[in-house]
Every structure is written in structure tokens, then in C-alpha cells.
């Protein structure tokens, strides 16, 4: 179980996260919604140990990310896909995927490379396995980013606005893959602006507003009367009526 308890995080005097509680159980897909600047990405960055926080606790299968000795173990259980892909530009797609399994998990290189190629095949990129990131489109890069995360065989997949840097067509490429992952039991914490998609794949929706988690409920409830009974959620959803929800 991944659990966040009373998480508080500030940048200077600006409170970004204020007492956030959240649990993610194995097999669950939880989407984090909220306006830009509501603290969604910061939440992910606290979970994967890229940001320190003032108060509260985050544990991944019991390993405390705030303790330097346990962070490595916590990180080994989750894997992150980034908004800006963050691939290593000097490595091919396959090398990007294979680096951490070889260096961190100490697995045999040949085996990891074969697995990386199989992953790329799954996301329709077998033919681009030996291309460098600069030679790939945004959607292709993000698919490599997803493979890189999956290659670590994480128990929790953290997705930080993974389609925000992509045009609609490329977004669709990436979402199709996430849909397959969601339906095959991958545990995901999905920070996104793709509301309609979040609705279609999530078991639960959590809603962040100015750093506070003001809703955490099953997806069906969030998009029905129960969610709309919260004024801020109703307002957020009403702006999206143009979109087919």
C-alpha cells in the first residue's frame, strides 16, 4: 500500500500541499484532478522523493520516503512517468529503458535488453528501438518513458501529467496504452487534466484544490450527484461540459 498522511509542503510562504491524506492499494487506479497549481505534480514529486516536505508522512509498502535509508527501497517499488518525458538524450530507446534495471536491479544485461524490446513492441515502437529521443515524436518519447517505468516492474506507477506536453493525436497514442495498463491490473496514481479519460479508467478520483484534498471518492460518485454536491467540484466539472463526460 502506498499511503500519504497529513502531507504538508510549502515553497517559501506558499503552501502547496496542506494536510493531504491518500492511500493507493495494489490494483487500484486513482486519478488526481484539480486546477493547475493545485499541487497535483508536487504530490507526485513528494511521493517519489524529489521534494522534501515539512509535515506528514509518505510510506510505500511501509518504507518511509523521508528516511534516506528507506527512500531507495521506496523508490524501487514505484516508477514515475514525467510530463516532459525526461529521457536520457544520449541513449537509444532501448538503452533508456534498460539503464535502471541493469544498474539498480543488477539484472543481466541481455535479458533486460530483450525485455525492453518486448516492451517497446507492446507500445508499437519495436521499429524505433534503436532511435535516440531526438529522433522520436513527443508521443513516441512518452511511450518510451512508459516502457522505462514498466521495465522496473513497479508496484505503483506514478504518472505526472504524462500527456500535457502532447498534441491531441499523440495524447491518444499514450492514453491507449494507459488504458491497456489500467485494465490489466497495474496500480496507477494518475495526475492528469484528461478528465474524460480519468473517468473511464479510474476506480477512484481525488480532487485537489489549493493544496487541500477536498474529494476522494469512487469515480462513478465523483461524476454524479455526490461529487457535484461539493461546490468546487461542481464548478470544475461545469467548465468541462463541452467535453463529453
Amino acid at each position, binding site marked *: 500500500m502506498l499511503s500519504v498522511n497529513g502531507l504538508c509542503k510549502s515553497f517559501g510562504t506558499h503552501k502547496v500541499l496542506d494536510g493531504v491524506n491518500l492511500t493507493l492499494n495494489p490494483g487500484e487506479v486513482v486519478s488526481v484532478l484539480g486546477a493547475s497549481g493545485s499541487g497535483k505534480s508536487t504530490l507526485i514529486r513528494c511521493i517519489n522523493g524529489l521534494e522534501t516536505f515539512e509535515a506528514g508522512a509518505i510510506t510505500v509498502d511501509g518504507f518511509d520516503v523521508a528516511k534516506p535509508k528507506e527512500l531507495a527501497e521506496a*523508490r524501487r517499488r514505484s516508477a*514515475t512517468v514525467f510530463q516532459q518525458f*525526461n529521457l*536520457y*538524450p544520449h541513449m537509444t530507446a532501448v538503452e533508456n529503458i534498460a*539503464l*535502471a534495471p541493469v544498474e539498480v536491479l543488477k539484472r543481466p544485461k541481455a535479458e533486460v535488453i530483450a525485455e525492453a524490446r518486448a516492451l517497446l513492441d507492446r507500445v508499437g515502437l519495436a521499429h524505433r528501438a534503436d532511435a*535516440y529521443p*531526438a*529522433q522520436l515524436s513527443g508521443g513516441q518519447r512518452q511511450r518510451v518513458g512508459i516502457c522505462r517505468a514498466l521495465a522496473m516492474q513497479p508496484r505503483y506507477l506514478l504518472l505526472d501529467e504524462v500527456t500535457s506536453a502532447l498534441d491531441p493525436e499523440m495524447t491518444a497514442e499514450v492514453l491507449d496504452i494507459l488504458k491497456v495498463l489500467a485494465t490489466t491490473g497495474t496500480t496507477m496514481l494518475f495526475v492528469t487534466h484528461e478528465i474524460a479519460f480519468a473517468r473511464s479508467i479510474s476506480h477512484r478520483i481525488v480532487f485537489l484544490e489549493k493544496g487541500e484534498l477536498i474529494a476522494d471518492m469512487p469515480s462513478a460518485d465523483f461524476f454524479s450527484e455526490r461529487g457535484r454536491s461539493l461546490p468546487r467540484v461542481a464548478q470544475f466539472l461545469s467548465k468541462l461540459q463541452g467535453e463529453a463526460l
Partner: protein
Amino acid sequence: MRYTEFTPYDIVLLLQGLSVTLWLFVASTLIGGALGLGFAVVRYYRVLLLRQLVHGLAELLKNSPVLVQLFLVFFGLPVLMKINLTPSQAALITLSGNTAAFVYVIAVSAIEAISRDQIEAARVFGLTRWTILRRVIAPQALAFAIGPLTGLLVNQLQVTSLISVIGVIDLTKVGHILNLRTLKPFIVWAVVGALYYLTAKAVAYAGSRLERRLRAHTDWKGV
């Protein structure tokens, strides 16, 4: 009577001078390069005190004339440490230190030129600082640094000519000797200059070859 003609033996003399220059250049490049990289790693790991020490030393070496450093090492160090230094040893120490300071500066800026994003990704995936340096930072930093490094080495090759003033029989010193004997400065210095020129060109050529190889590795051409 004074003998002012050139002899075939002068060619041997010039080549001997050139080999001394090259030897000092290569040795100081290797030692200075290793030291400079070591300095940059100290900075990368933010080693307390050592980091400030390294930075201060690099600043001193960068901002004072090599000739003054050379005098300080050749005349000052033996007095201070009660040791004997040959001119070659003094030259090697000085040139290595000077190269180290500039390699350090180039390495630091090359490391800083690498985007933080991918380093964050590497950290999240659990790579250690050392692995990140070795597998993510170093290959890219080298591609950034190779241009400035080539420029530095071409310059350091010319700087080696300063060591002739403390009595190292390098190419410049041989030029001096031949000039005094033959009294044909235009020919002597033109030949000496041409030899430096050819060596510098060879260094620059090797650098650009290496750069092309490192850059091909990161093919930046768009989709």
C-alpha cells in the same frame, strides 16, 4: 671565425626540442586533465572544505600569469620545501596545475549544461550519484566539453614555450640557440613557428574528430 650556416644536425636539434615540448604537453595534459576532472568530481559531490579549497586553487591558477607560476614553482618551491627541482619537473608541475584549473572550469560548466530533468528521472529510478555521473552526466558532458577542451589544449601547447626561460631545452629554447648561432632570426623563428602550428593543427584535428564521434552518438537532428 663564427660559423653561421645551418647544418643537417640542426634538424635533429629541432626535433629534439619538439619532442621535449610534446612530452611536456602530453604529460601535463594527462596529469592536468586527471586532476581537473578530480576537482570537478569533488565539486559534484559537494565535498565540504575540499570543494572550497579546489575552487580557490583553480581561481588562483586561472587568474595569474603562467610565467609567474613557473617562477614560483622553480625558484620558490625548492626553498620552501627544501627539495631539488629540475627545470623539467618544475615545468611539468606548473603546466599540469594550469591545465587542471582550466579543465576543472570546463568540466563544471559542461556538467551544469545538462538538463536537471533527466537527472531527476535517474534519481527517481534509484540510480546512485556515482552511476548518474558515470552513465548519464559524463557521456553528455564530454560531448559538450570536447570543443572547449580542444581550444584549451591548443592554447596550452603554445603556453609550453614559456618553460624555455627556466632552461628547459624545448622547441623554443632550440630556436633561441639556433638563432644565436646562425643570426638568421626570420628563418629560425618561422621554422619553429611552423612546427608549433603543425602540432596545434594536429591537436585541433584530433579534437574535432573526437567531437564528431561524440556528437554522432547524440544525434540532434530532428524527426
